[in-house]
């Protein structure tokens, strides 16, 4: 499974696994077996240099820390504009950037509770988005 609106970087095993999990309505992160550091999005190598990481299910509910509404998009994203991008803080100190859907301008505010949902862009391409609870 491929990840993201804008195809650019070749997929790796790690990205495919993450994307496939999104398709199954799961948000998968990795955790270092040595120092317990958690990575969302997942990494194959820990910053402590360990390569012993394990996958786990991250919480899918969080709160909007900040947001923007993109009107002037990149060439490849123009067909989606305007769209809303936010940073969502989850429990356990993890955060993720993503597009917010199903929000009106009057609803949009810092602290709004959202959940992660999957969106299939093509038969082999997927993205996650955030939707208000």
């Amino acid at each position: 499974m491929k990840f993201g609106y804008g195809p650019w970087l070749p997929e790796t095993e790690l990205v495919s696994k993450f994307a496939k999990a999104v398709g199954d309505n799961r948000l998968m992160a990795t955790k270092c077996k040595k120092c317990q550091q958690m990575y969302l999005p997942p990494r194959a190598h820990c910053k402590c240099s360990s390569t012993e990481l394990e996958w786990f299910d991250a919480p899918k509910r969080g709160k909007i820390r900040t947001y923007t509404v993109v009107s002037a998009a990149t060439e490849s994203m123009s067909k989606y504009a305007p769209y809303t991008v936010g940073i969502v803080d989850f429990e356990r100190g993890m955060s993720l950037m993503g597009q917010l859907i199903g929000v009106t301008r009057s609803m949009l505010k810092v602290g709004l509770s959202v959940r992660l949902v999957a969106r299939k862009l093509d038969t082999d391409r997927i993205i996650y988005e955030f939707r208000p609870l």
Partner: protein
Amino acid sequence: MLPKVGIVGIGHSKFGKRSDATIRELAHEAAWPALEDAGITIGDVDASVVGIASEEFAMQAAPAAIVHDYVGMGNKPTYRVEAACATGSAAIRTAWALINSKLHDMVLVIGAESMTRVSSARATEFMARSGDTRWEYPLGATFPAYYALMATAHMNEFGTTREQLSMVSVKNHKYGAMNPNAHLQKEISLEEAVKSAIISYPLNLYDCCAISDGAAAVVMASEEKAKRITDTPVWINGLGAASDSMLIAERSTLTGLAGTKVAAKRAYEMAGVRPDNVDVAEVHDCFTIAEIMAYEDLGFCEKGKGGKFVEEGQSYIGGKVPVNIDGGLKSKGHPLGATGVSMAVELVRQLRGEAGNRQVSGAEIGLSHNVGETGQFVFVHIYSR
């Protein structure tokens, strides 16, 4: 204490939509006046450091070689430096290290970029790819979007207002209108700035710097050489550099740039000065919120008071620290590789007392602050007479 390195010559092309030139001509337009200003010939220079951020914009792989050859450096060595929007300052820092390592005695630093030959949407695309191309670019993040996320956070936490953002733009356009090398040489009203078209809410058109073509150059020399060449060298007294996480969601705060604080602390310590000693500053105003955060992170005012700082006129000539009085990235323009070198050119002018109607009277200490990406590259330089 390390020996000082001096700037002995400066040159600056006209910034703007330069359909008459590509990077080689732009570089020439800055480099030769810099040599002339130093009173030397190209044969006196030992090497060049060329700052060009993007091969995609340059439409040329390894673009330093073209520029180096075109300005007539022949068989001398050249180094290409790249640090996104902070490329020019990275080039100056590199030249400083080359000189203080005694590898070279005198170095020509050229920063150049040609950006306007592609559409705005494509330029936005190129720049978006300097964000994480695996985890953020595929979500539709653009550069204005990154800074808009910071603006929302700053406005939410500190009550920074729409008007205060626009006040940065009004100030920079006021001074840009007085700078013959600036891209957008026109004053704007607060009302125009507040009401301009949204680019990435809350940032609008007048919150965003211009996409420009241009080049700037400086000749840098060892202390001994600089003193022999000129009676008016400008010294680099302090340098600080820092970085930050690629994923901005990973950062603990989005109301400032941690790298700016780290780099500034190092530069202030090295130069032995405090923020209130700075007479004139060039800060990275790629977006208006970036200038407001820079006031705070550089210690010109308290955290959260950046909006108030511009509102009170403290960043105008006559205020606490005149900031971006050459127009800044906003009005002067932001040809990526040229910007950091252009900041140095402006500070040298100010410290020599050659800035004409934009002169800060009696300026002795200048500071430049140049940011690449969203803080993954930060360079702070402190200059003195």
